[in-house]
Structures are given as C-alpha cells and as structure tokens.
C-alpha cells in the first residue's frame, strides 16, 4: 500500500518535471549556436553580474537582428550563480551536459571562476571568465595557463601597476591602503601589498572594512595618524562612496586619494556629493569613451557600446558590463571563424591577436590567456563632477 503510493508520487514528480522543461525548438532555421553564461546577477556580487547579463543579452539581440552568425542564430543561456560557488559549479555543469553549449562565459567572481576550472578542464569546454584574478589563467603549479580557460578583465596587477606608476610620477613614497573584506577587495589588497616593494612604496597602514559597514571613520582616523602621502581604496558598492565622504569630513587635505577601477561609474561621483573631486582611478576605455581621442583604437567600439547600452537600459554603464561584452564577442568571433567546435574555438581564441574589445586590445598566446597589456587602463581624475584624463 505504502509502496505503491510512493511510486505513484515519485513518477508523477518525474513526469511533471519532464513536462515543464521540454524546450521549445524553433523550426526552419539553421541550428542555433548556444553559448552559456554564468553570472552573479543577484547576491553579493550583483554589481558585476547584473551589467554583464544585461550586456550579453543586448549584444545577442543585436547580433541576431543583424542576421546571426553566418546565418546561425545565437542563443545565449544565462544562469545566475548568486555569487555562490556551489550554484556556480552546478550551473556550469548544467550548461555543459544538458544545454550542450559551445562555450561558457563567466563566472563573474574570481572565486567561482577558479572553482569551475576543474569542471571545464575535465569536460574540455572553453571558458571565458569575466573575473579578474590572475589565478584564473595561471596554474600555480606549472606557471602556465589552464588549457581551456581564458579571461577578459585586466588582472588586478594591471590596475595596481597603473596606480603605482602614477604615484611614482607624483613622487609619492608613503601610502596607506584600504579594502573591503569581499573577494574583490581582498584580491586587490593582495596585489597592492605584493607590488608595493617593486615600486619602492612603503605601506604605513593596511585597513579593511565590511561591505555593509555604515562608516569608516575609525579606519581613516588611524590612517590620518600615520600621515601617508596617498591612500588607495579597493572596494565596491556604497562603501567606496561613504569612504570618500568620511575622507572629506576628516579634512585629510594633502593626501591624494586613489580608487580602484571598481569606482568606474558616474553614479558614484554623483553619490559622493562633491567628495569625489580630485580622486584618481584607473579605468578601461568603455567608461571614458567620449574622452578618448578619435585615434584611439577602442574609440569606435566603446562609443557604440556606451550609446546602445544607455539607449536600451536607460542607465549609465559600469566598467564590468564591458567584460561581458568582450567575452561574448570573443566567442562570437571564434564561432564565426570555426563554428561550434569546442576544441577549434579554444585554439582560435588562443591564437587571436589584435582583438579590439571594451577593455583593451587583446593579444592572446599559449602563455597568456588574458592577452592584455599595460595600456588597458587609462588614469583618470574626477574634475567638476566628471571624469577627465589625468596627466
């Protein structure tokens, strides 16, 4: 009695779930190229995943409107990992085994990207990560890149490099660093500490704060007591605005304030209500498209992206959406050349030179699966409530 009941229930469940998920297949077209994406659309890292998702959906629409890829429509399947490593692992597996995608974009966060490397390596699927850590494209045991993994964002070391170079130019030698306790802040902090020696900089204070903290007066006061020449802050979200206000309140005049590239949204300048004046930060081309000279190689793609994003979503773009743009166009570029053949896509990307993206001109090689150089960032300064190129 009990046995039969159980079986009935179980079979109903199985049938029911099978019914609900039968995909609708559009007939009469060339088979769609499926590209998967796992972004942190919600949760802790939604500042990354949300613009990335919006960007790839917009780009896919544009490509399909223009006739697809060699006549094949492009289907982008986006899953949300909510910043959770377990969910991310499952989503990537699902994309590979169930959706049978040609390539995977994302994940948005470094931790999650590192977490799924074993999965894509084992299943031999190309992954174009949208996260920054160098560990994503460097196997720490061999020092070489992982075979199937690429990434589009500049490594944090490039941003640190451009900040520290700028500091040297200004004759700064004593600095303080601030970071939040998220993965974004922690990996920036690691690079800041590691590279300071190479530039002959002395770190006199190294402070952190939580991503939801209401106030950083205590940390800044401590820094004020140490009297550094410059402060670098590496965080994301409202704290990077709050900290600017606190900085201004404490009248820490004479100290130059640097923000990470995570500050790259005009919304932040507005929210800082005047406290952002004179803040330096390294930004990729897509944030400052209109400031770039017409001769700049990225000017055209950056302007086009900026305008269509603003038109579609009625909000200013953040630099992170650009990573999604780069990832999708890289994959599309490969699909156009070799079709949906995973190994061929991988080989194509690895050999790709001079690919003009939102965050730089990519030159991939078997030893470099990021393909960006020091020119990927331009140093900008906040002037009269807007960006201006710094000298």
């Amino acid at each position, binding site marked *: 009695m009990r046995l039969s009941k159980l079986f009935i229930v179980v079979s109903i469940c199985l049938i029911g779930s099978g019914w609900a998920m039968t995909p609708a297949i559009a007939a009469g077209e060339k088979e769609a190229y499926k590209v998967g994406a796992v972004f942190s659309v*919600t949760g802790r890292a*939604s*500042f990354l995943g*949300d613009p990335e998702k919006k960007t790839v959906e917009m780009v896919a629409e544009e490509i399909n409107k223009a006739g697809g890829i060699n006549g094949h429509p492009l289907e982008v399947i986006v899953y949300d990992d909510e910043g959770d490593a377990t969910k991310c692992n499952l989503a990537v597996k699902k994309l590979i085994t169930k959706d049978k995608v040609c390539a995977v974009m994302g994940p948005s966060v470094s931790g999650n990207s590192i977490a799924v490397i074993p999965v894509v390596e084992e299943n031999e699927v190309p992954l174009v990560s949208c996260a920054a850590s160098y560990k994503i494209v460097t196997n720490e045991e061999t020092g070489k890149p992982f075979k199937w993994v690429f990434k589009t964002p500049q490594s944090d070391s490039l941003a640190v490099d451009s900040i520290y170079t700028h500091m040297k130019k200004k004759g700064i030698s004593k600095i303080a660093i601030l970071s939040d*306790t998220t993965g974004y802040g922690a990996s920036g902090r690691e690079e800041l500490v590691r590279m300071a020696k190479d530039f002959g900089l002395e770190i006199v204070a190294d*402070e*952190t*704060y*939580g991503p*939801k*903290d*209401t*106030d950083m*007066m*205590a*940390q800044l*006061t*401590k820094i*004020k*007591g140490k*009297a550094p020449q410059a402060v670098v802050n590496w965080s994301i*979200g*409202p704290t990077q*605005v*709050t900290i600017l*206000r606190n900085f201004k*309140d*404490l*009248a*820490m*005049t*004479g*100290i130059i304030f640097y923000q990470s590239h995570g500050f790259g949204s005009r*919304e932040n300048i507005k*929210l800082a*209500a*005047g406290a952002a004046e004179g803040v330096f930060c390294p930004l990729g081309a897509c944030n400052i498209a209109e400031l770039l000279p017409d001769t700049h190689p990225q000017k055209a793609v950056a302007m086009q992206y900026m305008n269509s994003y603003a038109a579609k979503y009625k909000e200013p773009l953040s630099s992170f959406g650009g990573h999604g743009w780069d990832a999708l166009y890289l994959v599309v570029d490969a699909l156009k050349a070799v079709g949906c053949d995973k190994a061929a896509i991988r080989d194509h990307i690895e050999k790709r030179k001079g690919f003009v993206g939102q965050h730089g001109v990519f030159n991939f090689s078997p030893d470099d699966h990021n393909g960006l150089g020091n020119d990927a960032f331009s140093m900008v300064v906040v002037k009269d409530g807007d960006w201006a190129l710094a000298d």
Partner: protein
Amino acid sequence: MEQISLSGQLLQYLITGITIGSLYAMVAIGFNIIYDVTEIINFAQGEFVALGGLTMASLNVTLGIPLVFAFCGTVVFVTLIGLLMDRLAIRPIRQPSVVTLIIATIAVSFILRGAAMYFWGKDPYDLPPFSGRTPINILGGVIQPQYLWVIAFLVIVVVLLSFFFDRTIAGKAMRACADNTDAASLVGINVNRMVLMSFALSAAIGAVAGIIITPISLMEYDRGAMLAVKGFSAVILGGLGSFPGAILGGLILGLIESFGAGLISSGYKDAFALLVLLGVLFFKPSGILGNVEISKIKRF
C-alpha cells in the same frame, strides 16, 4: 597636512562609536518592543530600517517632498508595513515556538528585501543631510552635523517612548502585556491589539533609524540583514527586554567596533564585538542589564 594627535584619534573613535552605537541602539529598541509583548525576535527589524531609508529617498529626493512631510510620510508607510506583517505573517501562526517564529520573521525579511529590490533596484540611494555637510571640529575630532542628528533622534525616541509607556493608557496596557500576557488579558486588555501596536511602534522606530543614517552611509535594499544581526547582538548584550539595556548594548557595540577597528585590527572588528557578546552570555547570560527573574517567566 597637520598630524592628528593620539587624543584626537581617540576622540574620533569615541564620536564614531557613539554615532554607530546610537543606530544599533535604535534597532535594538525596535527588537525589544516586539519581544516584550510577543517574545518574538523580529529578524525583519533590519528591513524596516532599509525601507525607511529607501522610502525617504524616494519621497524627498525623487518626488521632492519637503523634509518634514517626507519624514512623516515615510514613518507612516513603514508603520503600515509593520501592521501588515503582524496581521498577515505573525498572527496566523498557530503553534509558535522559537524556531517557527525565527523562521517566520526571516521569511518576512526575505519578502521585504525582495520587494525592495523590485521597487528600488540594487543601487544605493542617498539623502541630503538635515543640516548641511560642513563638519564641526572639536578638540581634534570631527563631527558631521548628521551625527548629532543621529544621537538627537535616539534621545527623542527614548523620551517619547518613556512618555508613552509611563503616561498613556495604551503604553501602560502594553507594559502590562509585557509583564504578564495572561494577567493583562484577564483585566480586559486586548492583547492582539497590543501586539499589533508593538509591531507598528518598532516599524516606526526602524523607519526613523533608516532615515537618519542614510545621509551618512547611503542605503540599499539588502542592508537590513547586517543591521538585524547587529541589533540582535545589542539586545542580547544589554539584556533581552530591557530598554536601558538596548541603549547600553548598542552603544557598547558601536564603541567596541570603532575602537577595535582603530586600535587593534579593522578586519576583526566585528569578531571583537561578538567575542565580547559571547563572554557576556557565558558569564552573565541575562545580559548586562537583563533581569534573571524576568527571563525565567518568559516562555522562550
């Protein structure tokens, strides 16, 4: 730039600690009002704070309603949410236990957070400070005028609440409920109405806290969870159910965080606060100002 002296630094930590502590204290008072009448720890208390800040931003900044009216409008709106919470989520529960009630209030906090994300999105919102951004310098420390507002509102809330509980019939009835629900209902107090009122009151206080903190720290939809944990800590630290305890607990928590971050390690500042809390729980379980006898007659 002039160097800041050690005494100046200490003063600054004190100012920061008291300001943040006042915020925690306000959240803690909200916790206590509901706890006293219902023995529920309302994990959605932090959501009231976030809703307060966001609603105020919409009314004052987006719609351009003058400060005072927007303030009142916000408090009324969040109070209504508090009333709805009691009616729709808490009262229908038939078999309350600590776990069920924790789950229920967490469920409400999820719903409120989801709704806030739907209406306000994920971006932070700002509010202009009540009286400008020109900092005041005192003895080497810096005070934003808004900090004074935070402290002032804590005082106002405390004064109004003590007036309410000591001088008004409704307040006295609520206190009776807090002391002994059964006895209160025997002398003809409508306990259900008191529970409803407790939710309204603490929602209102949450809204005030959200409004006054937003000009300092901005506000976004998911700020509530962290504030709820901090408020809960303050409540337990001071002694569950004790109003002076809530204020003391909040201030102590704020000061530990601020001095801990400034003098020891900013990465571990939350851990210090929680370690002190654990120490108090282990050695004086009823909290600093809590009453052992009262905690015995409470069900949970």
